[in-house]
């Protein structure tokens, strides 16, 4: 029985790590701040959840599980908030970004940098 639990825990930890790796590759491959934030938030969050569940399965005491739950809850609050702040700051600072669809309904870019948005 512990063999099965150990296997599941191992698979989850490896899967979570692969998602974290994917986030890293995405940061490298994507072209501007916003698309990189997409890569950094989603796989990193789910990857962490996988690793935490894997760790919880292997944890010997319930106390550790409580702490792991706390880590997951804080990740769900902080990851999107962080991405939001980075994206907003980049937008307002006029960091070059691509709007390939042409749909831009925020329209608050600093005027001097407007040519960099396309």
């Amino acid at each position, binding site marked *: 029985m512990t063999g099965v639990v150990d296997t599941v825990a191992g698979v989850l930890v490896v899967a979570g790590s692969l*998602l974290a790796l*994917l986030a890293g*590759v*995405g940061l490298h*491959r*994507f*072209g*501007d701040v*916003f*698309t990189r*934030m*997409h*890569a950094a*938030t*989603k*796989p990193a*969050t*789910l990857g962490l959840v996988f690793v935490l569940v894997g760790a919880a399965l292997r944890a010997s*005491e319930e*106390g*550790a599980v*409580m*702490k792991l*739950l*706390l880590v997951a809850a804080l990740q*769900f*609050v902080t*990851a*999107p*908030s962080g*991405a*939001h702040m980075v*994206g*907003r700051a980049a*937008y307002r600072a006029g960091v070059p*970004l*691509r*709007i*390939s*669809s*042409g*749909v*831009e*309904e*925020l329209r*608050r870019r600093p005027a001097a940098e407007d040519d960099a948005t396309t």
Partner: protein
Amino acid sequence: MTARVSVVAVLAAVWVALWEDVTPANVVSGLLVALAVTALFPNRPEPGSSARLRPVAAARLLGYFLWKLAEANAVVAWEVLTPTNRVNEGIVAIPVRGMSGGITTIVANAISLTPGTLTIDVDDDPCVLYVHVLHLRDPEEVRREVLHLEALVIRAFGPADAVARLGGRGERVDLAPSQATEATREEPTP
């Protein structure tokens, strides 16, 4: 008052989780610390917000959210791993109902964790979320999806009168016309 009770309860739970053990000493010290923290940093009550928790609606929201989180990961993984570039970025303005700061916060954060969307700015009054979309096909589709998400959040945590205003199924409720036109401003013709 009830708001402070729930804040104290959550803070004490965090304290106990950090100690990794539920003992009377941990619970009591956690409550004392939570009371001290809430006394030192009183939180301004939001006017007109009487938040509550409806377990069934919250479970539906959680299920929807977890499914969308998995979908978001598949989308990003596909985009990262395949050499072709199907990225079609855009920034979409979404006028939401904006019942309360707390609900808008939950919606904005959930958007950032669901497929291909990332909240980058928020307007207050009228409440508008600005969302960066990775694979933009139709801005209306994005708006519909976010309003559906907001309806789920209101059903889970919103005050009773807000839920009543959602109507029967509440997922396609239109905004007051004035608010919608003001928020979407002059659409640029593509």
